[in-house]
Structure formats: structure tokens, C-alpha cells
């Protein structure tokens, strides 16, 4: 690792003060950041340890739930309210990483984890995300993990989170505190920005801003499923994943919110797909049309061509299960 200064912050105000400046990085669980620092993919010259901040705890927030940024993935997955009312979130968390990593990884850090694109990880390779303007070796290279939707000429890396996919289907908001001490809430759907010409910019977080919590509204549907397809049965990133939150209104779909992992530079959702499903009676014909709409602009890059039919099948299978009421 490149040498860095280490500062342990006692409260949010101190963390925001210490976290100012280009070379500073917050560290919580550290499972992704330290990995990247060992490989010199990231080389912060100042680490601000936020683990002692009072950003833990899961509590009621109106009808919903407020999850502190430092709540670990393990604690969130095992929380009784989450297991009962937001099972898609428990399922997504449990489908990610390993027991050891979930014990360290935090809610805020999970949202901000970086892509596992091989070329981003290999500092001998050009990468527009790691070294803006240097080029992209994924295009024309090995693309098994890469995006079929939402990529740009500059970057086709995928966002690796399972947790964020479930949170997107649950219409989560991210609470952020800035250096002026003001807190704002950003819908998770607006939190990630497309890669465009600046794939190094992944979220709307401003310089020195800190995620303090994630807020989940009351779930709008009780039929919740997280489906994940990967290369191993456990401890592997998604090739395609789908979070579904469905509410039935009699024989019809009253509420539909779908989100996808493994196929785009951000946790992916298409509001038109949710709109197509809402108010309709479930049928394979309807699900096929939803898949057509989701994948209308999908583009393979060789090694990930399989994700287009795979995403289609995962979507149809998940909707069949959710609308007939299979358990999460």
C-alpha cells in the first residue's frame, strides 16, 4: 500500500472536517477499499476511520425503516423487521460475499463499492474509471462480468452490489451529510450517475460528503423475491440478479417494482417495465413483453452476450414466482 495518514473521527462533524481534500477517503468496513489499496488501484493519502461514529442502529422512521450507514451487512440481513417486512433485502444481502465479509461490510460502504471489472483492478491496464482518459480494455476483451445496459463508449463495468439492487426495488433513499452539516435525502434511483464520458464519477455524492443512513419506506408489495444467477453456488458476484417487489390487487398486479444487478454500471431499473406490469393480470405473455421492454436497448460485447437471454429468463421466472406467491 502507498503510505497514508490515519485519523480516527469521534463524530460526524470531525469526520467531515478530516475528510476534506482530494486525497482523503472515509474507511468503515474497509473490505473493498483496503483490497483496492493493496493493489494500488486506489491510493488515498489520508484515511478517515468512521467506525466510531454514532451511525449504527436500525430504527423506525415513520412507516418505514432508517438504517444507519455503519450497520453491517450481517446485522441488516438478520434484523427481525427486515426479515419479516423487507425479505428481498435480507435475501440480497445473504446472496452476497461471505460470512466474514458481511460481518465487516457496512450499508454505506456497500452502496459505494467499486466494480470488479478485471481491467479496473489491473493497474497495468488502461481504464477510464481508474485513470480517466486512458482507454477501456474491456471493450474487445474479456467481458463475462460486463454490462449489457447503461454502458458508454468509455466504460461497460457493472456495479457489483446485491444489497443496492434490493434497496432500489424497495424505493430506498440515501441520507447524506455535507461539510456544511446539512443533511439531504437522495432517492437511490437518483444516487448513481451513468458513466457517460466520466466513468470515474459514480454517484451524486459531493466532495467530502458522507452517507449517514439509508431510509426504506413501508414496502409497497409483500411478494418479494431476490433471484441471483452466478458462476458458483456461493460467494460470487451476480451475472444477472433481479429483485422484485410485487403487490397483488385481487387477480391483478397492483404494484410492481423490479431492479436488476450484474447487467449495468449501476443497480438497474426501468420505470416503464414497472408501469407495463401494473394493473395487468399476470401471464407469460405479459412477462415476455416486460422482458422485451427491459432489454430493448441491450447490447452484448461478446463474452457477455449470454446475459441478454439470461436476464430475460430470470425476469420471467421471478415474475412467475412473485405473482403466484412463492416465498422470498
Amino acid at each position, binding site marked *: 500500500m502507498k503510505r497514508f*495518514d*490515519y485519523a480516527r473521527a469521534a463524530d460526524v462533524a470531525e469526520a467531515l472536517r478530516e475528510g476534506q481534500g482530494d486525497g482523503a477517503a472515509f474507511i468503515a468496513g*474497509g473490505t473493498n477499499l483496503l483490497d483496492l489499496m493493496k493493489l494500488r488501484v486506489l491510493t488515498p493519502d489520508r484515511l478517515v476511520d468512521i467506525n466510531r461514529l454514532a451511525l449504527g442502529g436500525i430504527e423506525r422512521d415513520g412507516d418505514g425503516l432508517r438504517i444507519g450507514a455503519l450497520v453491517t451487512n450481517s446485522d441488516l*440481513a438478520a434484523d427481525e423487521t427486515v426479515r*419479516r417486512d423487507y425479505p428481498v433485502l435480507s435475501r440480497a444481502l445473504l446472496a452476497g460475499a461471505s460470512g*466474514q*465479509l458481511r460481518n*465487516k461490510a457496512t450499508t454505506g460502504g456497500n452502496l459505494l463499492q467499486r466494480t470488479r471489472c478485471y481491467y479496473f483492478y489491473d493497474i497495468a491496464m488502461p481504464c477510464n474509471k481508474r485513470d480517466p482518459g486512458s482507454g477501456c480494455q474491456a471493450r474487445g476483451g474479456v467481458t463475462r462480468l460486463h454490462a449489457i445496459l447503461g454502458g458508454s463508449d468509455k466504460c461497460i463495468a457493472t456495479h457489483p452490489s446485491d444489497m443496492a439492487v434490493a434497496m432500489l426495488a424497495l424505493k430506498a433513499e440515501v441520507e447524506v451529510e455535507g461539510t456544511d452539516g446539512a443533511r439531504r435525502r437522495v432517492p437511490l434511483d437518483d444516487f448513481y450517475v451513468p458513466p457517460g464520458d466520466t466513468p470515474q464519477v459514480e454517484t451524486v455524492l459531493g466532495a467530502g460528503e458522507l452517507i449517514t443512513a439509508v431510509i426504506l419506506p413501508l414496502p409497497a408489495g409483500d411478494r418479494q423475491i431476490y433471484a441471483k444467477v452466478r458462476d458458483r453456488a456461493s460467494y460470487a458476484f451476480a451475472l444477472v440478479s433481479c429483485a422484485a417487489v410485487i403487490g397483488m390487487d385481487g387477480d391483478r398486479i397492483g404494484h410492481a417494482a423490479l431492479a436488476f444487478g450484474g447487467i449495468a454500471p449501476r443497480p438497474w431499473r426501468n420505470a416503464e417495465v414497472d408501469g407495463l406490469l401494473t394493473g395487468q393480470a399476470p401471464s407469460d405473455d405479459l412477462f415476455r413483453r416486460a422482458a422485451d421492454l427491459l432489454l430493448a436497448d441491450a447490447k452484448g460485447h461478446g463474452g457477455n452476450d449470454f446475459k441478454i437471454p439470461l436476464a430475460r429468463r430470470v425476469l420471467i421466472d421471478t415474475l412467475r414466482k412473485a405473482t403466484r406467491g412463492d416465498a422470498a
Partner: protein
Amino acid sequence: MRTELTINGATHALEADARTTLLDALRDHLGLTGSKKGCDHGQCGACTVIVNGRRINACLTLACMHDGDEIVTIEGLGTAEAPSEMQRAFVAHDGYQCGYCTPGQICSATAMLDEVAQGWPSHVSDDLTGEMDLSDAEISERMSGNLCRCAAYPNIVDAIRATARKEAAE
């Protein structure tokens, strides 16, 4: 920089560069070489230790972040003269070949049984809120962060299952 680490009940004063991982502090600064370095990237689990009751990868955390934490390593679980139940079970069931991953397997399995006792579900649990039944599929899923290149997995599962049953009977 100076950090006070509580390891296996004893306090150690560590004077080390901030870059020192908990794993390197244990092995290279404090002589506790039971925890092993495999991949050094959180993928293999050979470095698993138990911090404040939770299993973690010691390679993916900085020693200076653990000021005041309670750390248990394989040396703290048992000794050659007085091994823990899990250690006995790994011997009885031949849960290894070369043994390099074994300290991490045993620390991980020991803390994993606590997670089950607390009712934590896993990816393969049919019911998120029901009683946890520690089937072989559950053991494999919950231990997926520990690799064994000798592939002693069937015997590792046997050792963990036997320990869980023994604890349940007590």
C-alpha cells in the same frame, strides 16, 4: 502509530505503520502465526479471526482500527494440550490435508455456530424467520468464505456437524 490490541485476553501494545493489517500485526509483530496468509485479499479465509465475537478476514482490516477490540485467534481457542471441541472434531474427522487453511476454518466455524445460535438465516435457508436447521447445505453455504485447496470439504462439514450436535446435546 501506537495501538492497544486485546488478543486472547492479553493486552498488547503495537507500534506499527498505519498500513499494517491486523493479520500482519498478529503474525509479524506479535508472533501469533496461527492465523495464515493465503490470498491477502479476503477471498480464501485462511486469516479468519474473531473480533468482538464476529468472524472477519484479518487481512482486510488495519490493526490501528482495532484499538480496544477483543480479538480471538486460533491460539486463543485451544492448545495442543487442551483443544476446543471444534479442534478435536477436525482431528477426529480428518478435516484437513495440508492444514494451512485449518486455523481459519476452525475460527470461522466456531463463530459460525454462534451465528446459527443467534438465529441468523443464510442464503440457503428456506424460511428467513424460522428455526435454523444446520443441514450440510447450510454448513457449506455458511463456510463459503473459507477455501481448502486440498478439498477436504466433506470432512470439514463432518467436523462442524459433529461439533454442532455435541453442543446442542449439552
